[in-house]
């Protein structure tokens, strides 16, 4: 039975959807209300834990800012003056507006956008396709996708994560997993206990780095140089996999010639990592295999040389012979459940999408979504054509550089509907807002390890009139009369469509807390490339990317994973902006902007902290707790000074996404990786000074 009786209480089994870690959760429900949550402990391997965000989940579902009803703007756009309307009126208005925009300007002038969470994405892509717009885009325009691109440009498939259970050496590249992925705590300690050697690459002396065997403390943004330096050692000392390189790598000789210059001494000059540590780490990684690299979603690619930096890191996997190897990076898990939807729906690409002219490799690889990193300019400058309507799910303008500028752009749209959990500032410019259900208020299919499939239970009925995102998408398709068979039925039928390849139905999953194994399974075996080659133009692992090379003349992309230093490329006057600015490095209590509104989490520390090394604060005569003004060539913000010993001197860390002081206002619109379009959030420049009385006067004028 899925429900245990505890007096009047019921225990429902959900999967936490606040972030993407997917922790199984026991939800105690009494009289239709959630009274308590804790981590599930039903199956082997489930520890019963939750992170701070999950533990605060009642303040998430029962938040004061929760959207409870459809509403329409009655004031000027931007005033955020909303009045309640019926779902009927909302659907009718949206369908009419979207059909009239399509009629007048063409389908491409409507943008379909998916923010966070991600679970309804394939359905929204189907809606965009059926409507006829190439402009389906997501928050992946500044998160993860560039990491995947970097990998795909070499190996041709989606990023392959490390096989941690069987590795002898694990390199955590820019991942403070204790704080970014707290549920991994136990397996990290387990690896340590098993004798696995750990290398951590991180500028900060984090709790995760402190437990490593080798900590490479590089300057932010120099990841590419460090990886090339490690490759140089591996080649120079003949510690690489000759067979893999000779048979399966395209461009090795060119790569070898390029990395030659990255001697440990030269690499030390760029990265700040001592030469002997680079040698030690390269030797350990290359000789104590199998070895895996634990990636982070976007850390390395939030630099203006991000894709090339990550390509340099990713080549180490092939060079060391750890591609598609047990304990290295398996191309497919040994067993998995085949499901429809995620990664299976192709984007309509019959005409030019936004971002296509700016970032052609994004479309060539392809990412199956448009690239909206310059969304504000596309709307305001009508590039490449007029954009008139926006159908957004979870729009968060704080994701972009210069968020205030995007707000201005959203104001210009003829029609903007935002489906969201909370009435956030990002809805200020919306014409209509619709209330979405949280993961507590709907069912969701979840694929699990070992070919298992589970169902996250709906613990309670939706608050107010909130609805499941996919039901909203299905109804919009119906109201507009769009022909899309997969969306045409009920949500139950949609879930069954997801499950179809597994041979299971939703009904068979209900009541099985640990999930059910798929009737049809997909088996992966090592070294698939020996049989299938690589899904790249050359059929090989492209250390020199033929896709990027195509754009050499027109866009200046290099096929090699070249290192370009942001300190040289950006030409910022360092006498004015002496500090390196790193925004958004993970904190355990935050998840971008979304949970700032949970009072228990917000009370943990004052916002927004401007974190510096104590010696830097001393040189600036700034005290802990002082209000400071941070300026960059891109803008300015205010924050509260905090001394953090874990930081390298010379680097200022600020978490993003908080209206009390928005770090992303410091990042100029043009400070982007030219290949992916990702903003250089983690290596820019700034000045910090204590806020003085005259600052207050000048802002009033």
């Amino acid at each position, binding site marked *: 039975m899925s429900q245990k009786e*505890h007096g009047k209480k019921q225990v429902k089994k959900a999967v936490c959807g606040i972030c993407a870690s997917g922790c199984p959760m026991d939800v105690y429900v009494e009289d239709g209300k959630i009274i*308590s*949550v*804790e*981590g599930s*402990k039903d199956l082997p391997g489930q*520890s*019963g*834990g*939750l*992170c*701070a965000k*999950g*533990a*605060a989940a*009642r*303040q998430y579902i*029962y*938040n004061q800012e929760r959207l409870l009803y459809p509403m329409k703007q009655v004031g000027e756009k931007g005033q955020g003056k909303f009045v309640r309307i019926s779902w009927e009126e909302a659907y009718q208005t949206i369908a009419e507006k979207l059909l009239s925009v399509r009629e007048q300007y063409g389908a491409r002038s409507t943008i379909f956008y998916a923010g966070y969470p991600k679970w309804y994405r394939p359905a929204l892509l189907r809606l965009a396709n059926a409507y006829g717009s190439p402009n389906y885009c997501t928050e992946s325009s500044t998160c993860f996708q560039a990491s995947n691109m970097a990998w795909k440009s070499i190996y041709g498939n989606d990023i392959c994560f490390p096989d941690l259970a069987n590795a002898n050496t694990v390199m955590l590249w820019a991942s403070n997993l*204790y*704080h970014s992925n*707290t*549920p991994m*705590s*136990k397996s990290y*300690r387990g690896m340590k206990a098993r004798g696995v050697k750990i290398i951590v690459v991180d500028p900060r*002396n984090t*709790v*995760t780095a*402190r437990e490593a065997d080798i900590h490479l403390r590089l300057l932010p943004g120099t990841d590419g140089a460090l990886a090339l330096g490690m490759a140089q050692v591996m080649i120079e000392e003949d510690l690489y996999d000759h067979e893999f390189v000779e048979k399966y790598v395209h461009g090795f000789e060119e790569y070898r010639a390029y990395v030659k210059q990255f001697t440990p001494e030269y690499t030390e000059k760029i990265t700040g990592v001592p030469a002997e540590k680079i040698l030690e780490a390269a030797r350990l990684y290359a000789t104590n295999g199998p070895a895996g690299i634990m990636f982070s979603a976007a850390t390395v690619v939030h630099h203006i040389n991000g894709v090339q930096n990550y390509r340099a890191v990713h080549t180490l996997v092939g060079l060391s012979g750890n591609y598609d190897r047990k304990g290295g990076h398996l191309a497919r898990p040994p067993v998995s459940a085949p499901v429809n939807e995620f990664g299976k729906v192709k984007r309509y690409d019959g005409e030019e999408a936004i971002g296509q002219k700016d970032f052609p490799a994004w479309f060539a690889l392809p990412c199956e979504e448009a690239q909206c990193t310059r969304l504000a300019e596309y709307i305001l400058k009508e590039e490449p054509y007029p954009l008139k309507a926006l159908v957004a799910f979870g729009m968060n303008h704080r994701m972009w550089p210069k968020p205030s500028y995007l707000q201005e752009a959203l104001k210009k749209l003829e029609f903007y509907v935002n489906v969201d959990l909370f009435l956030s500032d990002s809805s200020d410019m919306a014409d209509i807002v619709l209330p979405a259900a949280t993961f507590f208020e709907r069912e969701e299919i979840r694929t699990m390890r070992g070919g298992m499939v589970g169902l996250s239970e709906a613990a309670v009925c939706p608050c107010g009139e909130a609805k499941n995102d996919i039901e909203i998408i299905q109804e919009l398709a119906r109201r507009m009369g769009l022909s899309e068979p997969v969306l045409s039925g009920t949500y139950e039928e949609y879930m069954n469509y997801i499950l179809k390849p597994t041979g299971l139905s939703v009904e068979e999953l209900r009541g099985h807390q640990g999930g059910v194994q798929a009737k049809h399974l997909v088996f992966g075996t090592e070294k698939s490339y020996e049989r299938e080659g690589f899904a790249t133009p050359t059929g090989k692992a492209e250390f020199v990317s033929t896709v990027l090379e195509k754009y050499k003349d027109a866009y200046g992309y290099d096929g090699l994973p070249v290192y370009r230093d942001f300190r040289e490329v950006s030409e910022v006057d360092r006498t004015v902006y002496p500090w390196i600015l790193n925004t958004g490095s993970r904190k*355990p*209590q935050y998840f971008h902007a979304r949970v700032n509104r949970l*009072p*228990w*989490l917000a*009370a*943990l520390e004052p916002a927004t902290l401007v974190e510096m090394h104590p010696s830097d604060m001393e040189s600036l005569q700034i005290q802990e707790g002082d209000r400071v003004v941070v300026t960059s060539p891109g803008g300015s913000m205010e924050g509260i000074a905090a001394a*953090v*010993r*874990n930081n390298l001197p010379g680097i200022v860390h600020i978490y993003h996404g908080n209206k009390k002081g928005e770090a992303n206002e410091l990042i100029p619109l043009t400070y982007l990786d030219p290949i992916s379009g990702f903003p250089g959030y983690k290596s820019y420049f700034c000045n910090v000074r204590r806020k003085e009385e005259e600052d207050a006067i000048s802002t009033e004028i």
Partner: protein
Amino acid sequence: MPYRLKFDKEKCIGCYACHIACLDAHHSVGEIVPSFRAFQKVTDLSGTFEKTVCPGCIHCGKCEHVCPQHAIYREKTTGFILVDQDLCNGCRSCEAVCPLQVIHFNEAGKMEKCDSCVERIKEGREPACVRTCYPGAITWEKIDG
């Protein structure tokens, strides 16, 4: 059967989960109050590392011994230190001797502290902080006697 709550600062990763789980276990969503688990910044000898840990009551009993009102007592079945707020006169003697500084006083001036989630234990559940702690820094164990 007496129990003891333990907290291992070394194992703690500074994730604040226990801090929040404690609030969730004792308060409604509208109550914005301090958690029974405190904050403590700890550093290592190198001076290049710090983390913020959240110590909680280990039920050592020092407060029980100094309470002039006998408001603080060791609960018989679990062995945890609890307070009878009706007897508390807010003299703050307990606060002065608490080695971990995890004693609070509410608006009415009555002493408040970790109750080891005694109500949950009666339902067969674990204390909220123990349950939520992924790295296993907070544990509870039975002790002899």
